[in-house]
């Protein structure tokens, strides 16, 4: 327990000095704009560093502003009160209560000091807190829900509890609640006692029960007291009165509260009669308006009053004004800390919107929302949109959330739901200064959790002043309030406007900047989807005029400039914006000049005007989002920590908002650049580009369901309502060409091996395997070499295992089209994979396990045997796979009609499940060796699969879009991998990530152990039995969301620690695993967090950093603790503390993403690998320091390089079947293999591994094996590329992308075999027919394909014949001419 890390943000005193030294400034004071050289003459640098870093924590406020020491002229007894609260709104009310007491009281003088929970992180503040408690009479705590701080409070108060006269804790974590004591009344038994009093707290274990039970307690006071012995009754009564006073929050109530407690429990006042009034009670929930004479309990009464207001005009009072519902916290109203609420109300009313501001005192707002915002008679919403100003999840506040209940209430309400937030843990200035933006704990509580309710637009609308007195209250941030209110009204207008008048701007992407790439989106056939969406909207009543006949014609419209003569290289220009107009419409334009000079610049410009590309059809505008702008000055921008949007980019959004006047913008597919523009990570300010660019336009964003992490970035930074779409149905890769022959040969070997032809067939197998380049994957004997029958079996088994691996690999075929769900038969492969996973939490066994069991085998043993190449296990596994497919196909067939569509799954299922004998899977299995499979288990499994099937084929994508455009609520749902988590289905949900404090889960830790153990074993085998000393690995946001933190847990397991969850199930602590239990040395790590991971999981980065530092400081032999070993060496070499040397958690600077190696590769704009490596180092060497978390990401390149130089292995995870190594550019973008080799003193290339947890049988393969597997299943697989070709224009681009990404792997790791390029060349270039199809379908992408081949050769990654190269060169000029419209 002693070494348990429980105070994450603690800070050794020496650190602060170090950090505030001015010379270090630029290392941690980086910002998202390139550094300005000329500093402002008015600036005071000494102050600056202090205010940004100070103690290195998130907030520098001091409790001293809350300390009141009485003059006590009359020598009265002194009562000292110490309080700790989350809600700063109590401080001014308490201060004024105490001041009045001191002025008027004749019995005692009051000393008070208050702490905001967050301040207790600071060691010195904590000490002062402990000292203050030593002579305190009364302790008060409220809403203490942050575990590490709760434990600090508990430790400090526990020591003094017996001595204290009274301890009062209002809703908080149970640990803190147990401290309550008032005379004979104590809560120390909380959670254990059977007394009815405590049972009340337990009643609603789920949800926000805790706080609401407390409220209920207050209401049911008399009943409760009946159960208590009479002597205790008085104390319990006073506790309940205290709660009423506290919840009543006004200075008067608090004054009486203090009188009551001190009069009753402070010994010095024994015998003094202290009078107090009863609490003034306010409504628990109701409607409040600053001008109204009272609070209302009935919305009709409120609206009646509203109608009589004489201060506002007829328009606002009348029936035609938009109506915005506001959700407020009662404590802000009763304590008088409501300026920020008033600001929002005034802003909305001044903009012509009526408001219904509702409040609740508990933590569950779902009841009040239903009661006050839904018309009880018509069940229709009384409002057009709702803005919660609490920042909290609708049900549960900071305590225990109940998202299903929140969603249920919001579904009934059915209006757009925005959750804005006031700063809680930071002052305004601290937030403005922070590149992280919002405090990570607040992000977890008030951004991530509301997202699970479907909350949108986390806009920070109120700040705090650090000083004392009234100014401690929340104050409006005027520009933020404007942004929030205009957006809320815009959403409300969507509910009010008719379809015919609504204007919609569809935005497509183009990256890399090439015409062949217009309409890029992951897994999506963008133009076909847009076409189908527009057709549907047209039918629905939207004004869509002049839509061409086909999707292809739509593409032509957008990508060709009709005014140009031939096939122009330019896109269609929708609008020319003069520089003057641009400047008028774009108030932030001057901020772009530092990077881009005066407008118009070179990008999206004709030299005089800014050009907006796209095409308008009636009220719909299809526009092409400008690019990031790297092509403007690639090297400078790729190297910079960050950049700014260019003028063309800004002009696009100015056009959409102010000239086209869109009612909503629809960003089409995963993903564009808007949300990745520089700015704070979360909690945008006025100068953050995503916020300025999106302006006041409601943003609806079609996002791939499997990418919740980046979708979350879009939600938080560009205020998107992200609507999920399905990735194309996966199919098994199958076998082709030589691989198919091999499979046939193996099959004949199995039947003929004992016939004397065995050797002959094995020889054929070996030579065919060689032709297929399998010799790198399987050790093949020399040709003609005589081998024993047993060895023959093993060779065949290994080859067999390899080709089965290829065959059964899943790949998404073709591209998804919105509104076209997969047919049932297309979903079979998906279902087979869903069926392959055990789901103990649902009581569902996996199909392979059931089948293996029926023949007396354990599936894990079969997997292992098959991996080893034991022929009979490989064969059994194949039979299991075949039987699984067969059983599921037969099941799916029975639920579909002749056209292959699922009809009435529900009915069919009932009829199927109703008659045991006729179950189709049983029929199928009865003809296989698995006829004895457990029927009951199968029934449970297939019931589950039936549900999944219904969801897979459900089509909500268009429906949800229409809901969003009609100003309705879009049901939220998790993003992720449908195979692991079928709850992702059906698509068409507002995607969210997860509670960032919920990971890693115990299950994730279990899976992580398996992978780490296999990885370490594999490395030992490849590396002479030695353990790797350091593993460099990557953490992805999506990966960790899908797997609930598996890769995060892998890191913890490598260094030998385990996560510890608190009583609310949140993970904020780790403890070391003993070396005995670990059974191996602690392995050092270098963790490269993606920018997205950093944004979503900063708390987990903090956890990791604490874990690494803790391990480095363990008193263990260095040969058993490589973290310590390296940290000691590095500390010595750099002359720093071990703790600082143990910096292992890196990422980009705040507000910047990726190493940009991918962009350089995609643009072919790099000279040599060294340059790519420099780029990687310059962008990825920013560390997060748990000792100075408020400083954000700090550049620590030296430590980064030193840590990387010890790496023996590099490692990444593949988590879902549809995204593999060459599908996206970000895997190679973050690969440091060649870089490590350069940094290592011995120049040795590290081993590179990829873990593949996409199937039940998790694998750790080398990188080169994985690249080969990927090439075989995708780029070179006819099934895959024909599937792509059937998507036309976009399909060609997909093929080209795979090749480009392959070159990326050559560049960063050198792990691509020559034959991959060679085979690709014969598939796409030597085949005349294929070549012509590619060229005519998308000449721009084809040109890039040819160019990439030439580049692969030019950079030395592909050696081939001169003939091949000549052909490519010739093709290149041909296609160039074709594109330029030159006919030869």
């Amino acid at each position, binding site marked *: 327990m002693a070494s348990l890390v429980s105070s994450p943000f603690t800070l050794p005193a020496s650190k602060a000095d170090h950090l505030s030294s001015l010379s270090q400034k630029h290392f941690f*004071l*980086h*910002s*998202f*704009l390139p*550094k*300005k050289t000329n*500093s*402002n003459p*008015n*600036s*005071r*640098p000494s*102050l*600056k560093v202090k205010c*940004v870093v100070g103690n290195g924590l998130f907030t520098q406020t001091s409790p001293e502003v809350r300390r009141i020491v009485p003059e006590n002229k009359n020598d009265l007894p002194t009562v000292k009160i110490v309080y700790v609260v989350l809600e700063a709104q109590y401080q001014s009310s308490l201060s004024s209560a105490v001041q009045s007491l001191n002025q008027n009281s004749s019995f005692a003088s009051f000393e008070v000091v208050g702490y905001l929970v967050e301040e207790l992180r600071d060691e010195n503040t904590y000490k002062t807190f402990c000292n203050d408690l030593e002579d305190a009479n009364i302790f008060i705590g409220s809403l203490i829900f942050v575990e590490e701080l709760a434990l600090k409070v508990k430790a400090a108060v526990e020591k003094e509890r017996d001595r204290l006269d009274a301890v009062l804790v209002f809703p908080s974590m149970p640990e803190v609640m147990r401290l309550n004591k008032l005379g004979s009344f104590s809560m120390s038994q909380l959670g254990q006692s059977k007394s009815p009093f405590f049972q009340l707290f337990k009643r609603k274990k789920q949800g926000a029960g805790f706080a609401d039970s407390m409220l209920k307690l207050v209401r049911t006071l008399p009943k409760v007291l009946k159960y208590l012995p009479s002597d205790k009754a008085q104390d319990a009564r006073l506790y309940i009165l205290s709660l009423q006073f506290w919840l009543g929050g006004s200075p008067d109530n608090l004054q009486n509260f203090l009188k009551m407690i001190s009069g009753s429990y402070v010994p010095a006042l024994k015998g003094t009669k202290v009078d107090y009034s009863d609490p003034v009670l306010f409504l628990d929930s109701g409607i409040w308006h*600053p*001008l109204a004479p009272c609070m209302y309990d009935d919305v009709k009464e409120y609206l009646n009053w509203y109608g009589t207001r*004489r*201060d*506002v*005009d*007829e328009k606002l009072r009348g029936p035609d004004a938009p109506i915005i519902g506001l959700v407020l916290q009662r404590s802000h109203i009763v304590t008088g800390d409501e*300026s*920020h609420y*008033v*600001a*929002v109300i*005034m*802003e909305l*009313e*001044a*903009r*012509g919107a009526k408001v219904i501001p509702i409040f609740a005192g508990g933590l569950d707002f779902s009841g009040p929302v239903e009661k006050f915002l839904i018309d009880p008679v018509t069940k229709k919403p009384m409002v057009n949109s709702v803005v919660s100003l609490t920042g909290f999840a609708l049900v549960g506040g900071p305590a225990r959330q109940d998202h299903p209940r929140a969603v249920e209430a919001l579904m009934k309400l059915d209006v757009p739901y925005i959750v804005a937030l006031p700063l809680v843990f930071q002052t*305004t*200035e601290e937030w*403005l*200064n922070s590149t992280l933006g919002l405090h990570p704990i607040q992000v977890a509580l008030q951004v991530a959790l509301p997202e699970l309710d479907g909350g949108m637009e986390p806009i920070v609308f109120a700040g705090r*002043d650090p*000083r004392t007195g*009234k*100014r401690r*209250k929340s*104050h*409006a941030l*005027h*520009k933020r*309030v*404007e942004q929030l209110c*205009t957006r809320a009204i815009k959403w409300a207008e969507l509910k009010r406007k008719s379809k015919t008048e609504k204007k919609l701007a569809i935005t497509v992407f183009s990256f890399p900047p090439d015409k062949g790439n217009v309409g890029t989106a992951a897994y999506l056939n963008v133009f076909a989807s847009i076409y189908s969406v527009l057709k549907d909207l047209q039918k629905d009543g939207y004004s869509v005029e002049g839509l061409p006949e086909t999707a292809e014609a739509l593409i032509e419209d957008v990508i060709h400039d009709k005014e140009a003569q031939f096939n122009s290289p330019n896109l269609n220009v929708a609008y020319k914006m003069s520089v003057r107009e641009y400047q008028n419409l774009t*108030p932030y334009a001057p*901020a772009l000049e530092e990077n881009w000079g005066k407008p118009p610049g070179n990008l999206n410009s004709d030299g005089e005007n800014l050009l907006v590309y796209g095409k308008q059809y009636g009220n719909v505008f299809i526009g092409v989002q400008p690019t990031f702008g790297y092509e403007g000055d690639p090297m400078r921008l790729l190297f910079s920590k960050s950049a700014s949007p260019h003028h063309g980019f800004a002009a696009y959004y100015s056009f959409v908002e102010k000239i086209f006047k869109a009612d909503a913008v629809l960003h089409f597919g995963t993903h564009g650049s808007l949300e990745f523009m520089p700015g704070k990570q979360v909690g945008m*300010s*006025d*100068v953050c580009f995503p916020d300025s660019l999106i302006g*006041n336009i409601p943003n609806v964003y079609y996002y791939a369901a499997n990418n919740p992490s980046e979708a979350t970035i879009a939600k938080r930074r560009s205020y998107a309502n992200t609507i999920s779409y399905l990735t194309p149905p996966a199919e098994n890769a199958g076998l082709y060409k030589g691989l198919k022959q091999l499979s046939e040969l193996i099959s004949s070997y199995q039947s003929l091996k004992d016939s004397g032809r065995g050797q002959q067939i094995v020889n054929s197998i070996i030579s065919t395997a060689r032709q297929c380049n399998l010799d790198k994957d399987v050790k093949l004997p020399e040709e003609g070499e005589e081998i024993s029958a047993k060895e023959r079996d093993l060779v065949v088994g290994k080859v067999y295992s390899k080709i089965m691996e290829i065959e059964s690999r899943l790949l998404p075929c073709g591209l998804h089209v919105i509104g076209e769900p997969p047919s049932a038969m297309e979903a079979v492969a998906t279902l087979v994979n869903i069926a392959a996973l055990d789901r103990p939490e649902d009581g569902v066994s996996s199909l392979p396990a059931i089948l293996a069991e029926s023949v007396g085998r354990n599936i894990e043993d079969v997997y292992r045997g098959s991996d080893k190449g034991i022929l009979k296990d490989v064969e059994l596994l194949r039979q299991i796979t075949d039987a699984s497919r067969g059983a599921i196909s037969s099941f799916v067939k029975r639920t579909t009609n002749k056209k292959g569509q699922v009809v009435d799954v529900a009915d069919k299922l009932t009829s199927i499940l109703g008659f045991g004998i006729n179950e189709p899977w049983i029929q199928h299995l009865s003809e296989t060796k698995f006829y004895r499979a457990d029927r009951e288990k199968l029934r449970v499994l297939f019931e589950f699969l039936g549900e999944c099937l219904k969801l897979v084929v459900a089509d909500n994508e268009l429906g949800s879009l229409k809901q969003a455009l009609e100003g309705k609520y879009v049901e939220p749902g998790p993003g992720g991998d449908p195979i692991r988590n079928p709850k992702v289905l059906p698509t068409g949900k507002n995607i969210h990530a997860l509670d960032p404090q919920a990971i890693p889960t115990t299950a994730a830790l279990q899976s992580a152990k398996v992978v780490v153990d296999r990885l370490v074993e594999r490395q030992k085998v490849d590396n002479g039995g030695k353990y790797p000393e350091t593993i460099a690995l990557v953490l992805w946001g999506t990966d960790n969301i899908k797997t609930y933190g598996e890769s995060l847990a892998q890191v913890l397991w490598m260094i030998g620690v385990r996560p510890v969850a608190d009583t609310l199930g949140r993970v904020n602590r780790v403890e070391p695993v003993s070396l005995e239990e670990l059974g191996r040395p602690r392995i050092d790590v270098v963790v490269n967090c993606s920018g997205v991971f950093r944004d979503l999981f900063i708390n987990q980065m903090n956890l990791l950093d604490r874990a690494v530092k803790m391990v480095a400081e363990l008193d263990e032999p260095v040969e058993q603790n490589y973290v310590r070993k390296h940290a000691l060496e590095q500390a010595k070499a750099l002359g720093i503390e071990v703790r600082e040397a143990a910096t292992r958690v890196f990422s980009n600077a705040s507000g910047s993403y990726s190493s940009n190696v991918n962009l350089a590769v995609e643009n072919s704009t790099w000279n040599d690998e060294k340059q790519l490596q420099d780029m990687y180092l310059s962008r990825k060497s920013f560390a997060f320091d748990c000792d100075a978390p408020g400083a954000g990401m700090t550049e620590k390149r030296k430590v980064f390089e030193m840590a990387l130089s010890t790496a023996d292995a590099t490692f990444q995870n593949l988590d879902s079947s549809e995204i593999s190594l060459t599908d996206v550019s970000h895997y190679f973008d973050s690969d440091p293999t060649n870089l490590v080799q350069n940094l290592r003193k011995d120049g040795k290339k590290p081993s590179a591994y990829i873990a593949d947890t996409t199937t039940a049988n998790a694998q750790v393969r080398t990188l080169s094996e994985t690249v080969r597997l990927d090439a075989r299943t995708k780029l070179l697989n006819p099934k895959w590329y024909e599937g792509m070709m059937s998507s036309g224009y976009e399909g060609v681009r997909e093929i080209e992308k795979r090749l480009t990404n392959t070159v990326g792997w050559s560049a960063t790791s050198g792990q691509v075999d020559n034959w991959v390029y060679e085979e690709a060349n014969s598939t796409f270039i030597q085949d005349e027919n294929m070549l012509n199809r590619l060229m005519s379908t998308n000449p721009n992408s084809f040109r890039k394909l040819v160019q990439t081949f030439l580049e692969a050769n030019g950079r030395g990654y592909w050696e081939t014949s001169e003939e091949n190269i000549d052909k490519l060169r010739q093709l290149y000029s041909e296609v160039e001419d074709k594109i330029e419209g030159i006919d030869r």
Partner: protein
Amino acid sequence: MASTSLRNLHHHHHHHCSSFKRLPPPPPPSSLFLKPPSTTTSSTNILSTTSSSSSTTFSLPSSTTSTTTTSSFDTLQHLLSTQNFRQADEETRRLLILLAGEQSQKRGYVFFSEVQYIPETDLKAIDELWRKYSNNKFGYSVQKNIWKKVNKDFTKLFLKLGWMKKLDTEIEQYNYRAFPDEFTWELNDETPEGHLPLTNALRGTRLFNSILSHRAFEGQEEEEAETGENGGLRDGTKPLGNKFLKPNYSF
């Protein structure tokens, strides 16, 4: 300048002091105080004249118009004439709350929609006092001129008025100044034009917007054209005239 109706109020002083506990100690007895709503019925003439000449977007309850005597501004005049800008600023805020009606007094702040109740003459009087004792550097009308020049952008206005301070971060950004220490309470060459009186932004900019849009400050264009402001980005094409009373829906 003072309204003709500001007469008969002296005797109600004591009723209302208690509602101002947040404000500085009451000024000398001669200063203003409030007339209870039941007795204020007389001053609508000014308002109705005004509203007929500008668009009548608001209907005004006659009973809530508070009025003052000429002598009500004595304190303000005294404070300003002795260059006690700090107290004059407090006094101005107190006056605004008083003038905006009983509701504002109970609440302790003015809701934006209550600004219309402040009699034009009174607001003008306050403004003129400020201008008079600051060589036309202070006052609402001074602030309004700047506001128009920055296209009614409050961030830009606050910067011009010196109400926000630049933060020393790499990106250019500003935070609100802390009251009262970070404001300038002297009149000298460095004091930004329009720096006083303050209207706080704790509750956003709508109150300030209403004050600057008050009919008391309408029709300043000519005046301003005469004084011939030094350069600036003034877009003098269209007079803003009586647009002020309408809520601005555009953003």
